[in-house]
C-alpha cells in the first residue's frame, strides 16, 4: 500500500461502544475487542473491521454515520475518548487515523449528546435540527440572474476570504457535541456571517438572522456562554469571532427591522 509504514505493528484494542436499539430504548456501553488493527487504517475503517467481526458472529453491527470519508461532507460524528472527532485537532472522525492510538488502548466511542440530536441507533444521531435552521433563512432566495462574469460584483479579497472561512462549515455538529450547553451558535453564526459579509446576502440580512436564531431556540439548543469548546473542536476551524458577528447581526436586526412581531 502506498504511503504505508512497513514497520507499523498491528494493534489490539478494547472498544467501549454506545449501543442503543432505537430512539425510544435505553442505551448502554458495550465492550468489544478488535485485533490486528493497522495503524494506517482510518478510525472508521477500524469500525468496519469491528462490524465485519460482529456480522460473522451473527451479531448486529454498530450503526454509525459516514459518507464521503474525505473530511468534507460532515456526516461522521463520533465522540471519541471524551472529544468530538477524537483527540486530533482540526480533524473529522474519518480523517483520524489509528496511528494516533497505541496497542492495548481502550477507546470510548459515544454519539453526539444533545436533546436536539436524538440518537437514531447506536452512534448515529438525527441532525435534521440543523437542516431546519438552514431552512429558516440560511440561503439567498432573491433572483440573482444567470452566472455572473468574474469580478462583476466587486468584493474585497479580505471580505471574500472571511466569508469563505465561515462557509467552510460542514455542519457536522461537533460544536454542539463539545459545548457544555449543547449550543448551536457556532454553526448558526458561521452561516449568518458568511451571508452577511457578501452583497448577495444583504437583501435578506435582517430576516435571516431573526428567523435562524428563532429556529435555533425552538429546536432546544442551549445558549452560548463563550466557553470556546466549539471552536477548539471544530474540524474546519470556524472561529468564535463568528459568534460575535452573529450577536451583532441579531441586535442590529432586532433594533432596525420592520418586523414588529
Amino acid at each position, binding site marked *: 500500500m502506498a504511503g504505508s509504514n512497513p514497520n507499523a505493528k498491528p494493534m489490539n484494542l478494547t472498544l*467501549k461502544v*454506545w449501543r442503543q436499539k432505537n430512539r425510544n430504548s435505553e442505551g448502554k*456501553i458495550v465492550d468489544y475487542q478488535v485485533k490486528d488493527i493497522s495503524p494506517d487504517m482510518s478510525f472508521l475503517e477500524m469500525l468496519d473491521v469491528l462490524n465485519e467481526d460482529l456480522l460473522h458472529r451473527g451479531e448486529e453491527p454498530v450503526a454509525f454515520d459516514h459518507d464521503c470519508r474525505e473530511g468534507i461532507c460532515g456526516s461522521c460524528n463520533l*465522540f471519541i*475518548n*471524551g*472529544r468530538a472527532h477524537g*483527540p486530533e485537532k482540526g480533524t473529522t472522525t474519518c480523517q483520524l487515523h489509528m496511528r494516533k492510538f497505541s496497542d492495548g488502548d481502550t477507546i*470510548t466511542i*459515544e454519539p453526539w*449528546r*444533545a*436533546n*436536539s440530536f436524538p440518537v437514531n441507533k447506536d452512534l448515529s444521531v438525527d441532525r435534521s435540527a440543523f437542516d431546519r435552521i438552514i431552512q429558516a433563512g440560511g440561503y439567498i432566495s432573491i433572483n440573482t440572474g444567470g452566472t455572473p462574469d468574474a469580478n462583476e460584483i466587486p468584493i474585497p479579497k479580505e471580505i471574500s476570504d472571511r466569508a469563505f472561512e465561515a462557509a467552510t462549515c460542514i455542519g457536522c455538529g461537533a460544536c454542539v457535541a*463539545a459545548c*457544555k*450547553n*449543547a*449550543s448551536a*451558535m457556532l454553526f448558526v453564526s458561521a452561516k449568518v456571517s458568511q451571508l452577511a459579509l457578501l452583497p448577495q446576502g444583504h437583501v435578506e440580512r435582517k430576516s435571516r438572522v431573526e428567523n435562524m*436564531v*428563532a429556529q*435555533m*431556540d425552538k429546536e*432546544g*439548543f*442551549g*445558549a*452560548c*456562554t*463563550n*466557553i*470556546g*469548546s466549539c471552536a*477548539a*473542536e471544530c474540524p474546519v476551524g470556524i472561529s*468564535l*469571532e463568528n*459568534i*460575535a*458577528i*452573529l*450577536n*451583532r*447581526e*441579531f*441586535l442590529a436586526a*432586532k433594533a432596525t427591522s420592520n*418586523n*414588529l*412581531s
Partner: protein
Amino acid sequence: MSWISKTFSSSIGRKIIVAITGLFLCSFLVVHLIGNLQLFKNDDGVAFNIYSHFMGTNPLIRTLEWGLLLGFGFHIYESLTLWRRNQAARSVGYVSNHSEQNSKWQSRNMALLGTIILIFLLVHLYNFFYRARFGELDPDINNNDDLYTLVVSSFHQWWYVALYVLAQVALCYHLLHGFKSAFQTLGLTHRKYTPAIQAIGYAFSIIVCAGFAIMPLYFFFFTNGQGEPISSVAPLVDSINLALK
C-alpha cells in the same frame, strides 16, 4: 408578544442582558473597592465612617442603589434562566468527556462561581449593609454610625475572613471569564482591540479581587482588636498614610 419582549426572551437577548448587567456590576466593584480603601487609613475609622454615612444618606447614591439592586437581580435571574435552558439541552451526558482539553475550567463553571458569590453577597449584605441601614450602631466621635468598628470586629473572626477570601477567589475566576465574555456577547470584537480587552479583563479581575481580599486579611493578621496596626507593620502603614496625605 411584542418584538421587544421577543428579543429579550431569545437566547441571544438574555445573554445580552447578562453581559450588560455584568459590566455594570464591574463598574460597581471599582467604586466599592476605591471607597473601601479608606479602611486602611489609620484614624480609628473616622474617614471610613464619613464615607459610609455619605453612601447611606446621599439621595443620588440612594437612587443608584436601586439601579444596583436591579443590576444584580437581572444578572442573576437571566443567568439562571439560561443555565436551566442549557441544562435541559442535554439530558443524557457523556460517559467520557474531556472538556478540560478544549476549554478553561472557569468558563465551564460560571454558574457554580456565581452561586458562591451570591451566598457571600447575602452574608455580606446582612452583616454590613443591613446592620448599617436598619440596625443600631454606636456613634463615633463625629456622631456618624460607627461601621468601622463592626468591620474590624467582623474581620477578626477566622471563618468570616475565610469566607471573604474564598468569595474573592470565586469572583476573580468569575471575572476572568466574564469580563471578556461580556464584550464577545455584545459583539464588541475586533482584531485590533480584542487582545487589549482580554488583557484588561485579566488585570481587572486580579487587581480588584486582590484589593478586596487584602482588607479582611490585613485586619485579621496585622491589626489589634481596635483596628490599629500591630507594631511590625505600623511603620509601613504610617509611611503609606503619610505619602497619601
